[in-house]
């Protein structure tokens, strides 16, 4: 049994890598470009994960934890152990990743049909799944960081899948570079912890912090914030949220898998996993980051017309929720929201993919290349044409809006209760629940705006409306599956109470008290949240109703004209439509000055240093070489070496005259020689 808990996760980890290697090298030669390799391996990992999950449910023990590690580098003073850690958190996360990944693979079979880089697309999906599983299974900061970067690379590759489009190429670069900013912080955090504790593994770090003698106070806060910066980048939090909406340039299934359900959740997962290291100060900053992100992204989402952009900003907003929950201490609620959000948000993306796919085909039929297939203003009335997509999307929308009976309600409620409880005990932080409830109302509003604009009302483009059709089975399959998983019942079993999050999840994932000495205990936090529960529930139902009602009045009944409102609040509308000018301001205050700095440095380097210093050296060397060359050629070669040759030449020229060929001459020389010798001997 114990063995199984290690082997299966390892299989889950490495099968997608095998699929990646096979596809990247032999993908084009395989029948069907090898998509069956990718789908087969990922579905297998899903069943392994499902088996682990069932085992976990059967055991029903919150304290389960298995681990295995090996020594990767051992230099006496410097030691790195790599290993995997399997507990309930890991198993749930593995199930999410493999489930959404499987759905994405199956969905992509039709969505990406006929794509020029079909096999490479599936290869990259495999690479992504491998690295995501790597983050989930890591038991130390080093392997987490490695997988973290690998996830960044696969995100870069997949956003830029259609790199012929400039916007896609730019978006992939933007995503990668923005993530780098966060990753630098992550790395600094890791190093701070390592220098203090001397280990990369989680458990020694937690123990050491709990001991309170290696790393405390400001250093620990800074280390926690550094690590949290990684999450800010990866989970697209304010102020690094700018990359995620652009990342929608990638194929829609990729958006569903990475930029909605799993990869962006990695930051939340990491914060949850490392929750014990955050000091109260760090947590406060984390909470505000999450809160601001939640409300800001929701405000932007109101005015977006691109169906994927709305979903992108809603993802940013929901991730803000999760981070807010981590910050206020109810981090299991954050993970619970991660779980429910992964299901309904992936489904929303699949549904939008299905709509875009259909629009694309319809536009293609009438040879309309100019109309944007993602713009909601070109849709409307798709309800009858695409019933499966409509109903599934409606269910997921109800879930994200926080309507009772659906999954989102449970998790959102848990977060809002935690936030409210936090504010009740720290009244100076009243803004946090305000952010939370505000974002909840706005979320309900813009999500129903999306539904009404896409599926209700009259079709805005009549010439393509007749060609709109339901998507094929490969696409509706995942939609139905994930849509079903948006109901509350899957998360509250074995109980049936639709308004309480009490269920297998809360039984199996029990919050631990932070390792930082002096923190509130997990019990206290839970107690406070429990008291705030009913108030939070009432408020969240109320704000969700307000949001939905407003959307209904504006986009179905047309009682309130959206146009008049936007005219009235012109500058607010512009702010939201232009995403609060984040990109423009970053460009003006960060990128341009930086480019100027780079230009100055490049001038210094090229025009000054290179031209005068380096080239000067070159010129001096050149001169010296010429001198030494002259000495060598004219002096040594011409004088000494050639002189010796010339001397031999002249000598030979003269001596050859002795060689007369007359025998008697030679004899004369011999006799003369002998005479000379005799005379010398005589003296």
């Amino acid at each position, binding site marked *: 049994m114990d063995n199984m808990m290690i082997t299966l996760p390892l299989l889950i980890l490495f099968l997608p890598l095998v699929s990646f290697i096979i596809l990247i090298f032999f993908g084009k030669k395989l029948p069907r470009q090898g998509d069956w390799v990718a789908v087969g391996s990922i579905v297998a990992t899903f069943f392994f994960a499902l088996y682990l999950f069932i085992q976990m449910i059967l055991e029903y023990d919150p304290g389960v934890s298995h681990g295995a590690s090996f020594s990767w580098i051992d230099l006496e003073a410097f030691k790195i152990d790599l290993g995997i850690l399997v507990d309930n958190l890991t198993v749930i996360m593995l199930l999410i990743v493999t489930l959404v990944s499987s759905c994405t693979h199956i969905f992509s079979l039709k969505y990406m049909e006929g794509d020029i880089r079909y096999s490479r697309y599936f290869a990259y999906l495999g690479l992504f799944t491998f690295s995501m599983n790597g983050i989930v299974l890591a038991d130390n900061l080093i392997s987490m960081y490695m997988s973290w970067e690998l996830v960044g690379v696969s995100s870069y590759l997949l956003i830029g899948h259609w790199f012929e489009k400039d916007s896609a190429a730019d978006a992939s670069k933007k995503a990668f570079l923005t993530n780098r900013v966060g990753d630098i912080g992550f790395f600094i955090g890791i190093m701070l912890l390592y220098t203090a504790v001397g280990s990369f593994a989680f458990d020694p770090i937690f123990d050491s912090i709990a001991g309170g003698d290696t790393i405390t106070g400001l250093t620990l806060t800074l280390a926690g914030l550094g690590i949290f910066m990684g999450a800010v980048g990866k989970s697209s939090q304010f102020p690094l949220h700018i990359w995620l909406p652009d990342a929608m340039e990638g194929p829609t299934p990729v958006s569903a898998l990475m930029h909605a359900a799993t990869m962006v959740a990695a930051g939340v997962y990491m914060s949850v996993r490392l929750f014990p290291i955050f000091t109260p100060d760090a947590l406060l900053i984390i909470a505000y980051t999450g809160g601001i992100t939640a409300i800001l992204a929701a405000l932007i989402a109101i005015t977006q017309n691109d169906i994927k952009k709305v979903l992108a900003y809603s993802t940013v907003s929901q991730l803000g929720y999760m981070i807010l929950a981590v910050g206020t201490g109810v981090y299991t609620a954050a993970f619970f929201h991660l779980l429910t959000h992964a299901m309904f948000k992936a489904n929303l993306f699949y549904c939008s993919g299905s709509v875009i796919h259909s629009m694309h085909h319809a536009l293609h039929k009438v040879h309309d290349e100019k109309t944007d297939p993602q713009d909601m203003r070109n849709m409307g009335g798709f309800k009858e044409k695409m019933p499966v997509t409509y109903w599934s999307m409606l269910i997921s929308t109800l879930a994200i809006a926080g309507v009772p009976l659906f999954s989102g309600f449970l998790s959102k409620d848990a977060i809002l209760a935690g936030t409210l409880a936090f504010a009740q005990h720290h009244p100076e932080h009243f803004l946090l629940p305000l952010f939370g409830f505000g974002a909840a109302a706005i979320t309900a509003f813009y999500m129903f705006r999306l539904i009404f604009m896409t599926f209700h009302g009259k079709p805005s483009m009549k010439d393509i409306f007749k060609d709109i059709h339901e998507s094929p089975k490969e696409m509706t399959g995942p939609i139905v599956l994930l849509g079903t998983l948006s109901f509350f019942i899957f998360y509250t079993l074995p109980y049936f109470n639709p308004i309480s999050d009490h269920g297998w999840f809360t039984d199996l994932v029990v919050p631990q008290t932070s390792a930082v000495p002096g923190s509130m205990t997990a019990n206290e936090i839970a107690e406070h949240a429990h008291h705030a529960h009913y108030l939070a529930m009432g408020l969240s139902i109320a704000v969700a109703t307000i949001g939905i009602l407003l959307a209904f009045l504006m986009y179905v009944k047309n009682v309130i004209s959206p146009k008049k409102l936007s005219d009235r609040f012109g500058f607010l509308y512009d702010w939201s439509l232009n995403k609060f000018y984040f990109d423009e301001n970053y460009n003006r205050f960060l990128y341009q000055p930086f480019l100027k700095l780079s230009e100055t440095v490049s001038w210094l380097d090229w025009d000054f240093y290179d031209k005068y210093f380096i080239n000067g050296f070159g010129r001096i060397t050149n001169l010296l070489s010429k001198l030494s060359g002259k000495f060598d050629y004219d002096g040594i070669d011409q004088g000494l070496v050639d002189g010796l040759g010339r001397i031999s030449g002249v000598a030979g020229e003269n001596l050859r005259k002795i060689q007369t060929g007359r025998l*008697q001459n030679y004899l004369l020389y011999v006799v003369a020689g002998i005479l000379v010798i005799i005379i010398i001997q005589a003296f």
Partner: protein
Amino acid sequence: MHSLDSYLFISSMLFCLGVFGVMTRRNAIAVLMGVELILNAANINFVAFSKFNGMNLDGHIFGLFVIVLAAAEAAVALAIIINIYNNLNSINVDDAAELRQ
């Protein structure tokens, strides 16, 4: 009896005549005869030193060897001269200067 000096005097005279002949004669046969004179000057020395220094018959035996070798040498030299004559139609040693530079 005569003294050693008179023998040596005769042999050195003979040697000088031989060298002179070898160096001045153009005729190859004459040159060969000069060489014979030089060899015989040496023979006289062998025998004279043998006689006056009490060395039994060592010098005489050497003299006999030299005579035998001189005969062999004469045979080879004459063969060479005939070949030169066949090729150059002359036995003048100055004509046989093909190897001059």
